[in-house]
């Protein structure tokens, strides 16, 4: 049918089938700013202004928009202009991955059209129509307020009133490009912080430490076609996946003949049609950690949502129709959904296939197992004055990125397979997919465009193989995207764990022994199970000084959808248990919980013994490895600043805990100490190439993967700082396996630290070449030269511009392209530290927990870009907030997921947020580029224990299972009342 709409003021006829949604019609008309995040109207990413009102377009027919007016972000500005709303979103750091940004900007436009001076509450209400998984909404709200002021003609203050981080005031004069070398023999690095209220001198030069706008901010604010799905190729087919309706079964018979006959269907692939190559899907370095227990398509299904068949067809509707025509006869097998039950004798064996490799004990469904120890835990426990044993359980949650997994594959002109995919690990994908397709790596090119959020969920070779198989079968470009429901049933998630701690404490309050046993539910496949569990062991046994440590991890198969990587990677589970345990011990021994933690916390100069016993998915012999050492630690200052921000003193005020107006409400405060890692030492590798252009600008090519965190910006800032140019003179490109150097990918909080150091090293090399060229031009020595203000300065005061150097080297004398490539692998993994505080209200009648305020103070070393660093903390806290109060992936007795849409899963929206405050506590990490440590994952660690501890403070009931849903809290209160006052 034909409909006529007005898009951004221009009449636009659209030809579409009657069942076409307005979202699909707009995207077919190349209005790419309209994004697909779900099929249920829950996320708002597809929203436009329909007759001036923000409206989701995925839940209305295109036909309903006939003769209506549609406004999208494309209509805001001409190509080279920028609208004040877009500018405000860029200035304030309101854009991370940018997938929600076009809808947020249109929501803002709608509001400001009718309300030029909105209140925060109005802003939050309207932004409540668009889910953002990255920002925590603080900066989008600031952006709307700023845009409103700009549109009212007011002069808005600079975003950067202090000129960025007071780098020199904090750390002394900097020597451009100098990278301090760690000195383990002299660990005297001191914490250097300044109260947030003090205005410090502006950094005169340089990019590092400044809240620079994101280098990709403009294109994201303009809704440009920069994501994987924003492409239309001639002859492109659409993929669809048939998934298993049962939890455990053999496929007795599968008949795809009717589907294949359906007009418009080009391929139907089942296990009979693709090579059987065993692999592990986790996007990790070679050799991938075991077990190897997957194949592209199998004759057995192991969870509801497991792969059965894939289809490629002319349209998505035909592909979906074809799925319904595939006849499958299942021989159902007993299924097991509990990790403890799965290990018992007689439990169904989930991986009985003979070709799976490196499963620890398939008869017990034990995918992998880890044992590690430092000292003699049993002796230390026996000798301790007090002993404690507690078990905590954490649950499975989803990363909740708004952009689903999406892949487009095609053969290029040279018969090489191109894979355009939303991935955090393009180089791993290329290496891992090659054997599955029976293609050499050299015939595969993986392009990673912008990513609409990943949070670990895209650290996986998840659907690239299926899409590629379809292109190989059809010789046509194929686009294959998960539905939102498939994201819940057939993607990855955070592992559920049962964590049992045993602790021994001396009379003086010193930890003497920590023994941690984890049973981890990896679901149907092993993928990241081993490495996540090993990180849980590390995180659970690193934060506090303790002479005797032991870890036992069991990674167990069940017939549930597979868990995988999720921001924090085992840390949030372990920190929940550890920080609740510390609270419990403090309260039981009559100690102040903060003082008890600080008495035991690691500090500068300490080694972290467990790091010598547990590696990335491997166990070292005791004494075999060198433990990591703490060179910088801002934890005391984090605790101090966080305490002040949350007004921790209120905790001891009995009156404060109650509200006379609301007798059923109890208030509480809780805190947790957090410690994470920065990259995987000796394993994570980054590389960068930099070349100079005629005008003195630079191209930086990195394999690092910016998944919305702002890492491209941070890397550009480091290059700019080293080369002495403004960040705008650095053009960064990431990542394409044909053009950019290798990088392990965006995970393990590694990009700033590892890829940043690679960029810095390459920039130093290039700068030396520029110095040599300048010496040639000035006929002087290169000794003592510096680069700043886009010029190279000689010792004698003369200088040449970068552009002059470029022109000289490219065109005038001894011509050469000045360029450099460098790689970096770190032997260190310096820990960032944080102090997380939470204020809650608990409704004692219903059990409902309302988080009123979250404060997190983080020592991430030098924040290369304070704006993006704060954004990481704020967004991370909100993800962690969902983890503790509402998000979960429940199943029925047949293993069917009970939440398959955002609305049921419940991601926090802008109009229901607690107050939030993020504080940066700078230290100078000598092993990091410009003193940086990681910031991306630590915000996930502390919220759950801080909230659980606050709930205990409020109602005196300790809850050791997540999430703290109303019924769980209500039940715990009831049990507590029956049992009498149990120990806290």
């Amino acid at each position, binding site marked *: *049918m034909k409909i006529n709409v007005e898009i951004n003021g221009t009449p636009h006829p659209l030809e579409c*089938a*009657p*069942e076409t*949604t307005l979202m699909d019609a707009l995207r077919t008309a190349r209005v790419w700013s309209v994004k697909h995040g*779900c*099929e*249920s*109207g*829950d996320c*708002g990413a597809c*929203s436009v202004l*329909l007759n001036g*009102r*923000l*409206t*989701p377009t*995925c*839940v*209305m*027919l295109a*036909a*309903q928009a*006939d003769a209506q007016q549609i406004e999208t972000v494309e209509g805001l500005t001409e190509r080279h202009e920028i609208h004040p709303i877009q500018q405000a979103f860029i200035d304030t750091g309101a854009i991370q991955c940018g997938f929600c940004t076009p*809808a947020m900007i249109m*929501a803002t436009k709608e509001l400001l059209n009718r309300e030029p001076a909105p209140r925060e509450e109005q802003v939050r*209400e*309207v*932004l*409540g*129509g*668009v889910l953002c998984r990255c920002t925590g909404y603080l900066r989008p709200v600031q952006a709307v307020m700023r845009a409103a002021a700009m549109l009212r003609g007011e002069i808005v203050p600079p975003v950067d009133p202090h000129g960025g981080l007071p780098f020199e005031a904090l750390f002394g004069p900097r020597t451009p490009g100098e990278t301090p070398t760690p000195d383990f023999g002299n660990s005297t690095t001191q914490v250097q912080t300044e109260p947030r209220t003090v205005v410090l001198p502006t950094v005169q030069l340089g990019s590092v430490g400044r809240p620079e706008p994101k280098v990709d901010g403009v294109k994201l604010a303009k809704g440009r076609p920069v994501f994987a799905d924003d492409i239309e190729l001639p002859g492109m087919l659409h993929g669809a996946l048939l998934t298993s309706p049962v939890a455990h079964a053999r496929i007795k018979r599968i008949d795809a003949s009717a589907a294949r006959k359906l007009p418009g269907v080009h391929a139907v692939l089942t296990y009979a049609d693709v090579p059987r190559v065993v692999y592990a899907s986790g996007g990790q370095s070679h050799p991938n950690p075991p077990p190897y227990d997957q194949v592209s398509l199998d004759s057995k299904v192991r969870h509801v949502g497991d792969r059965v068949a894939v289809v490629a067809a002319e349209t998505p509707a035909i592909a979906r129709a074809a799925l319904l025509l595939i006849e499958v006869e299942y021989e159902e097998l007993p299924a097991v959904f509990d990790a403890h039950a799965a290990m018992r004798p007689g439990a169904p064996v989930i991986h009985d296939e003979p070709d799976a490799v490196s499963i620890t004990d398939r008869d017990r469904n034990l995918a992998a197992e880890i044992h590690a120890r430092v000292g003699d835990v049993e002796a230390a426990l026996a000798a301790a004055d007090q002993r404690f044993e507690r078990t905590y359980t954490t649950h499975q949650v989803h990363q909740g990125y708004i952009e689903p997994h999406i892949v487009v594959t095609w053969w290029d002109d040279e018969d090489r397979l191109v894979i355009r995919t939303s991935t955090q690990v393009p180089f791993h994908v290329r290496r891992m997919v090659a054997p599955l397709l029976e293609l050499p790596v050299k015939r595969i090119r993986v392009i990673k465009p912008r990513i609409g959020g990943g949070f670990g969920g895209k650290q996986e070779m998840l659907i690239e193989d299926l899409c590629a198989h379809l292109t190989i079968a059809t010789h046509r470009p194929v686009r294959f995207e998960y*539905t*939102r*429901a498939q994201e819940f049933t057939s993607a990855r998630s955070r592992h559920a764990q049962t964590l049992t701690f045993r602790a021994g404490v001396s009379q003086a309050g010193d930890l003497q022994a920590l023994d941690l046993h984890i049973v981890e539910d990896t679901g149907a496949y092993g993928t990241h199970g081993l490495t996540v569990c090993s990180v849980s062991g590390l995180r659970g046994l690193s934060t506090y000084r303790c002479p005797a440590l032991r870890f036992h991890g069991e990674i167990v198969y069940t017939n549930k959808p597979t868990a995988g990587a999720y921001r924090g990677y085992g840390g949030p589970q372990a920190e929940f248990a550890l920080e609740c345990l510390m609270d419990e011990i403090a309260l039981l021994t009559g100690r102040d919980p903060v003082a008890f933690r600080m008495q035991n916390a690691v500090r500068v100069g300490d080694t972290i013994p467990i790091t010598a016993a547990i590696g990335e998915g491997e166990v070292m012999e005791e004494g075999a490895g060198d433990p990591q050492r703490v060179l910088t630690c801002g934890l005391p200052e984090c605790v101090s600043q966080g305490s002040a921000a949350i007004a921790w003193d209120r905790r001891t005020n009995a009156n404060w805990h109650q509200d006379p107006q609301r007798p*059923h409400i109890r208030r509480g405060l809780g805190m947790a100490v957090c410690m994470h890692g920065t990259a995987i030492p000796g394993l994570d590798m980054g590389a960068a190439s930099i070349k100079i252009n005629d005008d003195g600008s630079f191209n930086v090519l990195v394999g690092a993967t910016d998944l919305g965190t702002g890492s491209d910006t941070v890397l550009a800032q480091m290059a700019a700082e080293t080369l002495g140019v403004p960040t705008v003179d650095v053009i960064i490109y990431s990542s394409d396996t044909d053009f950019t150097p290798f990088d392990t990918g965006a995970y393990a909080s590694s990009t700033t630290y590892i890829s940043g150091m690679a960029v810095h090293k390459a920039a130093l090399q290039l700068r030396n070449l520029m110095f040599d060229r300048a010496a040639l031009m000035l006929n002087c020595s290169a000794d003592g030269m510096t680069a700043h203000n886009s010029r190279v300065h000689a010792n004698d005061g003369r200088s040449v511009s970068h552009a002059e150097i470029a022109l000289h080297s490219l065109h005038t004398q001894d011509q050469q392209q000045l360029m450099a490539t460098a790689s970096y692998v770190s032997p260190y993994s310096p820990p960032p530290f944080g102090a997380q505080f939470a204020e809650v209200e608990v*409704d004692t*009648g*219903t*059990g*409902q927990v*309302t988080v009123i305020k979250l404060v997190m103070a983080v020592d991430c070393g030098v924040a290369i870009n304070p704006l993006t660093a704060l954004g990481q903390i704020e967004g991370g806290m909100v993800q962690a907030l969902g983890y503790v*109060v*509402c998000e*979960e992936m*429940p199943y029925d007795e047949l293993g069917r997921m*009970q*939440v*398959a*849409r955002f*609305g049921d899963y*419940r991601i926090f*929206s802008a*109009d*229901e947020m607690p107050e939030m405050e993020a504080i940066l506590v700078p230290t100078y990490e000598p092993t990091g580029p410009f003193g940086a440590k990681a910031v991306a994952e630590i915000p996930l660690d502390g919220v759950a224990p801080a909230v659980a501890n606050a709930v205990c403070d409020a109602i005196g009931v300790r809850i050791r299972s997540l999430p703290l*849903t*109303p*019924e769980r809290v*209500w*039940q715990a209160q009831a049990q507590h009342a029956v049992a009498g006052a149990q120990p806290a």
Partner: protein
Amino acid sequence: MPANTFIYHRAADLADAQKVIQQQSQSTNVLLTQPRVPAPYPVATGLQLDLRNLNLNFIRSKSGLIEIGTSTTLQALADAPLLKRGNNGIVATAALHCTHYGLRNLACAGGAAIAGDGPPDLQLAWLILDAQIHWDNGTVSTIGAHAPAGASFPIQISYTDTVTSAALHAVRRTPRDEAIVAVAAALQTQANQVTHARIAISGVGNTPARCTAAEMALAGNALTAANIESAAAAAAATSGSRSDYRGSSAYRHAMASVLTQRALDALASNNHS
């Protein structure tokens, strides 16, 4: 017409809509967006009937009745001064709670009134106001009742514009989440005697429903703490066995009581102040 085809028709007027429905051999899906949209959208085949030209987008007060057109968006309900003023603004508040801002601009009163699942707030509010659904064939039904014979789609929702004190209380995982259990209550009193009581509960049974046992504990009686407690006890005994990951049946029954008590306490304190 082949089975399972997907046809879109924008009715010119009411007669056209009815005629086209009668001519159909397939099912008809009237395009009244609900606050919880069935996923993946669009799920239905058959006739998709668009009522846009029927001018059913209105909120008006007429002859002592509040009338709300079936196509009126939830955001219009939330914004309407008329609805914010009357009955403690319960209809406007309920509309706000039904879904997020964007979807409130698309979902409509008719969709909310006939929804079989999803956020219960508006249905609860309308239940305690004795609202009626007026159908295309001139028949009338109450909220939650099956569509009358021969009726195809709702035209409007109406309720008496009387001054009623009303309250809506709910337990949710997060402040804007769909209620696990919600209770709406409306009272009219004279000299502290309850002359009219309405209590509706969602989350215990499959759909929101009035709890007449709780109402009877109050109607005709004094608005005392003891009678409120009796009403809350009756609410706990309301029938239904709904149970899912957000709350067991036992929890839901307990919350019906807690929230009924709170709603009535709030109304009683308003009554006394």
